[in-house]
């Protein structure tokens, strides 16, 4: 007898629970395009993981204004054709109100005509400057523009009195965008490019390029790429006994790079988002809280280091969340709210969007860090690095 009552009760409870779900407002659908597999999976995977993590956190906390957020992620495989199809699906079939991603500049550029036409806000996690320059109505981005990193590097070189550099960039969209900026900005910083070399994303030996660079008159090497290429470069530099300062891009700002490059990583300098040195930041740093919580949460959930790239997705998702919290529900309203974002302390930096600036960051988003004893160390430079801290 008691059993039956128990059963009935539990069934009732279940029905109630289900009813409460259906009664609650429909979830807000947000789309995401990441290159989870394929050659750019080093971007897409942490981004996807981070976005899922952020959305789970939102939903656990009761959603936004009582509505849950449902994140629909499609894999673009780093292929523009697939990105276009996936974006169309998000907009037309899933009817999302906003899109975060894609991971790469190429995918983003391919998707832009669609979101512009359909009027869906998109926050790209790719770095290419072309994405928001010129500003497009519906397109925002969270990844720091390459030119900011380049400015940082050139400023740093200035403090060191280095005027001649050699470039060694990877021939994918990350590297070619960096190369473009490095070459474009060189003149205004009075930097002379003594050698301009590239390597393929799957290359296994860069001694040839480095030998050529050694023979040039460069006083520093700037290598622009993402793992594992730069790690091989670091090792090759050591092998060849090159003593020039080696500067890399923010593309390697994770512990993984140190692990891959091993001993050869010592002394390498990079411009990086604050995330890898979060614990070294002064307590007064406005970004510190967000950074620390991101690093901790990611570590707890995925047993891996939350990197810089995942941070782009964190920022993108958080920006969308903030816009929603401010009452936006339609794509157009979200877009309008996004554009009004001011002083958002994100992972990538402090964002300030405006109708003419959909990238929202300044070069302060970067700090210069170096590698010491197998860990990242903030360069507390009197001029270049210090300015960032002082400015706030």
């Amino acid at each position, binding site marked *: 007898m008691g059993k039956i009552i128990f059963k009935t009760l539990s069934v009732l409870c279940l029905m109630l629970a289900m009813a409460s779900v259906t009664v609650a407002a429909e979830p807000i659908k947000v789309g995401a395009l990441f290159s989870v*597999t394929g*050659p750019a*999976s*080093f971007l897409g*995977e942490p981004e996807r993981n981070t976005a899922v993590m952020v959305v789970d956190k939102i939903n656990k906390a009761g959603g936004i204004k009582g509505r849950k957020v449902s994140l629909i992620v499609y894999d673009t495989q780093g292929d523009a054709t697939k990105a276009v199809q996936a974006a169309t699906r998000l907009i037309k079939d899933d009817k999302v109100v906003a899109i975060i991603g894609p991971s790469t500049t190429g995918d983003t550029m391919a998707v832009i005509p669609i979101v512009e036409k359909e009027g869906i806000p998109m926050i790209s996690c790719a770095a290419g400057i072309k994405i928001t320059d010129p500003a497009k109505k519906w397109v925002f981005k969270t990844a720091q523009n390459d030119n900011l990193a380049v400015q940082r590097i050139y400023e740093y070189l200035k403090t060191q009195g280095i005027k001649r550099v050699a470039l060694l960039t990877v*021939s994918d969209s990350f590297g070619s965008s960096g190369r473009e900026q490095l070459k474009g900005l060189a003149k205004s910083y009075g930097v002379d490019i003594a050698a301009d*070399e*590239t*390597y*393929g994303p*799957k*290359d*296994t*030996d860069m*001694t*040839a*390029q480095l*030998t*050529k660079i*050694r*023979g040039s008159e460069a006083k520093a090497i700037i290598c622009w790429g993402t*793992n*594992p290429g730069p*790690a*091989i470069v670091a*090792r090759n530099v*050591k*092998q*060849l*006994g090159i003593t020039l300062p080696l500067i890399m891009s923010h593309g390697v700002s994770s512990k*993984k790079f140190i*692990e*891959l*490059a*091993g*001993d*050869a990583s010592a002394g390498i300098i990079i411009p990086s988002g604050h995330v890898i040195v979060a614990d070294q930041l002064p307590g007064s740093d406005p970004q510190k809280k967000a950074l620390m919580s991101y690093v901790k949460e990611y570590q707890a959930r995925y047993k891996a280091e939350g990197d810089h790239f995942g941070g782009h997705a964190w920022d993108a998702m958080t920006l969308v969340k903030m816009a929603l919290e401010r009452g936006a529900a339609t794509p157009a309203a979200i877009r309008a709210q996004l554009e009004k974002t001011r002083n958002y302390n994100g992972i990538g930096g402090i964002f300030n969007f405006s109708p003419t600036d959909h990238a929202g960051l300044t070069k302060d988003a970067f700090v210069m860090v170096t590698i010491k004893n197998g860990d990242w160390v903030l360069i507390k430079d009197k001029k270049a690095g210090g300015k960032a801290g002082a400015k706030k």
Partner: protein
Amino acid sequence: MASSDQILQYCLSGLSTGAIYALIGIGFAIIYNSTGIINFAQGEFVMLGGMLTVFFLSVAVLPLPAAVTAAVLVATLVGVIFERLAIRPLKDAQPITLIIITIGGSILIRGIVMLVWGKDTHALPAFSGNEPLFVGGATILPQHLWIFVITVLIIAANRLYFHHSISGKAMRACSYNARASRLVGIDVKRMVLFSFAISAAMGSMAGIIIAPLTMTSYDVGVMLGLKGFCAAIIGGMSSGIGTVFGGLIVGVLESLGAGLVSSGYKDAIAFFILLIILFLRPQGLFRKGETERV
């Protein structure tokens, strides 16, 4: 323009990558000679070598020699399984079908490795330190020496096997005339299985000795496989010295091309040379005669 030290460095670098291409290329040739199949999954054996060694070192915590041995054994096993499941059941298949099957196999192996071990790149410690050694005005790492020594050893072992052991001779006999081989009692199917085992072992060994320099991840096999294939074609699909030269030629020209011409077009240079050789000497640089198998 370029100093002799530079040229020397280009050549040394090229020789070490070329040695790897040669090992992979010989793997291609061995399977091709015994079956007429171009095994597009050859690159995946290379990847498996590196990845398995990483696995045995870090997860199973074996000492390096044991890890290397275990990795080669497992990769060989994968080769054998691949032959049994995907190649042997096909009788009288068209070459195009076989090409597709091996491409499918390559995707499959890559996919499984990606799922099991993730997409991260992994480093393998150098076998004996990282202090550069000076050769004239150029430098190499101890690992380069390992590469040269192991490559030479493998090629010597290969030569010994194919020319001085009865089973190796039987394999050569099979590749020349399978019908007559059956008449002297050679089990042709077993030889095909052997060929997959040997080339999987060689490929994985190549992957292991190069991993300390280049790192390894689930997708390193594709480009290495293609370059190895170039080496084999240039060498006229010989499982011996021809392909070794083919590999060294590709490696050195690539390195010289990157150093002297343009690093961006480095791979294009390798494939351009390949095309020229195919157009002018389709049987490869080192094969005389007209014994092209159809």
